[in-house]
């Protein structure tokens, strides 16, 4: 019945035929070429490569268009000037007031969103019963589904006047109200991603803490939170990046005046809001002032790029650890 052979040295046929070089087959690309398959693969690759083209396009456009701007405005003056007045004669292009606007509104938003988002994440991941989580999580995510222009309306029409009643003599449009509403918007970015990170921490770690008699709170903050830290960090960074890049809320509700101040009760102008302002037609096309939106955009891109890459690396590290 059987022709199987126990050991190589026993088999004469086998030892007679030495493996020939051509029988060492590389696996990919073996067999006859299938041109249709190759073509499809190329097309799919091109689609993936378009994202790279887009990034290169962004960098190229921002550098190219802002180069005209930097020919008439020294880079040092741009980066260190404290007055932003593109329509003055002579115009001043000091970016610091716009940076102040961006930093203050982002800071206020984070003061709102980081604590609330983190507590929500811990609650959802460690406390909430299944049914509650199934309902609350998608509902909370709707917060980021509201168009930002609507949030801008909220900040301008409801939050600003309310703050005016709390603090005497502040303007109705101020960075505080824009920042607070922006914070509301980014809560789900922070809570959702942090929760995902905490939930992917292995049950075993939690069991270790529970076995020592810890309660949920201690387990959550001393075991799960540190274990998920890089994932949570990437969630925070995504939130920061969103806040820096958010445009409509601050364009509508932050006041629209460049202000070299860190006081959130003042009106302010962020980098993004400035770009919108110019697009609305305050400055003539082709003027130095108009080109300044590309310089401002370049700065914005560099900031968010830094945060995005940091967030990517943290996320990657987190994925690798679990």
């Amino acid at each position, binding site marked *: 019945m059987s022709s199987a052979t126990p050991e190589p040295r026993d088999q004469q046929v086998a030892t007679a035929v030495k493996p020939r070089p051509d029988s060492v087959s590389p696996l990919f690309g073996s067999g006859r070429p299938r041109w249709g398959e190759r073509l499809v693969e190329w097309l799919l690759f091109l689609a993936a490569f378009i994202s790279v083209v887009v990034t290169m396009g962004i960098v190229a456009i921002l550098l190219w268009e802002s180069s005209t701007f930097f020919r008439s405005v020294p880079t040092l003056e741009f980066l260190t000037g404290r007055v932003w007045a593109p329509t003055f004669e002579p115009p001043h292009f000091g970016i610091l007031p716009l940076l102040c606007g961006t930093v203050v509104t982002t800071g206020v938003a984070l003061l709102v969103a980081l604590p609330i988002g983190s507590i929500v994440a811990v609650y959802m991941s460690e406390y909430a019963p299944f049914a509650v989580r199934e309902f609350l999580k998608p509902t909370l995510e709707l917060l980021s589904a*509201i168009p930002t222009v609507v949030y801008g309306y909220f900040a301008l029409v409801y939050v600003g006047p309310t703050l005016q009643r709390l603090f005497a003599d502040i303007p109705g449009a101020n960075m505080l109200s824009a920042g607070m509403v922006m914070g509301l918007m980014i809560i789900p970015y922070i809570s959702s991603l942090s929760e995902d990170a905490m939930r992917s921490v292995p049950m075993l770690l939690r069991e270790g803490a529970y076995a020592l008699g810890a309660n949920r709170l201690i387990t959550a903050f001393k075991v799960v939170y540190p274990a998920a830290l890089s994932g949570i960090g990437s969630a925070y960074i995504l939130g920061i990046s969103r806040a820096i890049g958010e445009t409509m809320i601050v364009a509508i509700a932050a006041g629209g005046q460049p202000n070299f101040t860190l006081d959130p009760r003042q009106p302010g102008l962020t980098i993004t809001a400035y770009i919108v302002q110019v697009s609305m037609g305050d400055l003539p096309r082709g003027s130095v002032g108009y080109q300044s939106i590309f310089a401002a955009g370049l700065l914005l891109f560099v900031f968010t790029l830094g945060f995005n890459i940091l967030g990517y690396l943290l996320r990657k590290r987190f994925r690798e650890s679990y």
Partner: protein
Amino acid sequence: MASIPELIVRLKRQDRWFAVLGLACTLVGLVTLLILLAGLIRDGHHRLFDPAFYASFPSARAARAGILSPLVGSILLAFVTILLAVPLGVAAGVYLEEYAPRNIWTTLIEINIANLAGVPSIIFGLLALGALIYGLHLDRSLLVGGITLALLILPIVIVTTREALRAIPQGIREAAYALGATKWQVVRHHLIPYSLGGIATGTIIAMSRALGESAPLMTIGALTFITFLPPPPIRSQPPFVNFQWLNSEFTAMPIQMFNWISRPQAEFSALAATAGVVLILMTLSLNAVAIILRYRLRKRIKW
């Protein structure tokens, strides 16, 4: 050191407090949102059920102004966006998940997509302004707006496609290969059909984002007074279709709302609120569809 029973009581009390705090924090966002929404409806309900509001063009006189052109603009814009972003995004997702070799180039493309997902939307507007309008001398048309928004949501479509593909067990792929299928046959007959639900969910979410997006459209200069509709896409004579609408100027719901917000008069603020309600209804209903779809998919598919 506290006695064991005391300790246990304390630990339990901590847990109860935190559960209350957590629920409160979760609700604080939602309740604030509900209050703001209620305010929006209060301010904007006057014209919400007025058919003339939906059938009139924006006007300098608040009483006669409507949202016909922005509504049509938003719908056409979403259509162009989806048509461009979904094929590209799905193709890119399939490549990265199923074809791409593990090497430095693939990693670079991945980092790049992760970065692109976090680039502020207004930067996409600057890209379109510099490349399409200055560079290629295109008009501020529906096509340019659609391309801009498509590039903006491309990363979302790619990421959801990859997640949907990753959810398909390797055994399904192996079973198809073991029957002699080529890679593209596996992708076309199995992977894409099985991931369609996930892709659709992600695409709907992306579409809702595109509908509410205004900053990049403002940058390409779409903030104009539009009191006409694009030429209809269907004609009575052959060849029956007409692509002139792609070159038409447009306005969109969020832009119109911004326009009304920025006017000082109270009547326009009320119009903005009404437009806001319509806009929210559009994006929230899309999100609701996505949530239901995701829920049903999770219940149905058990690999």
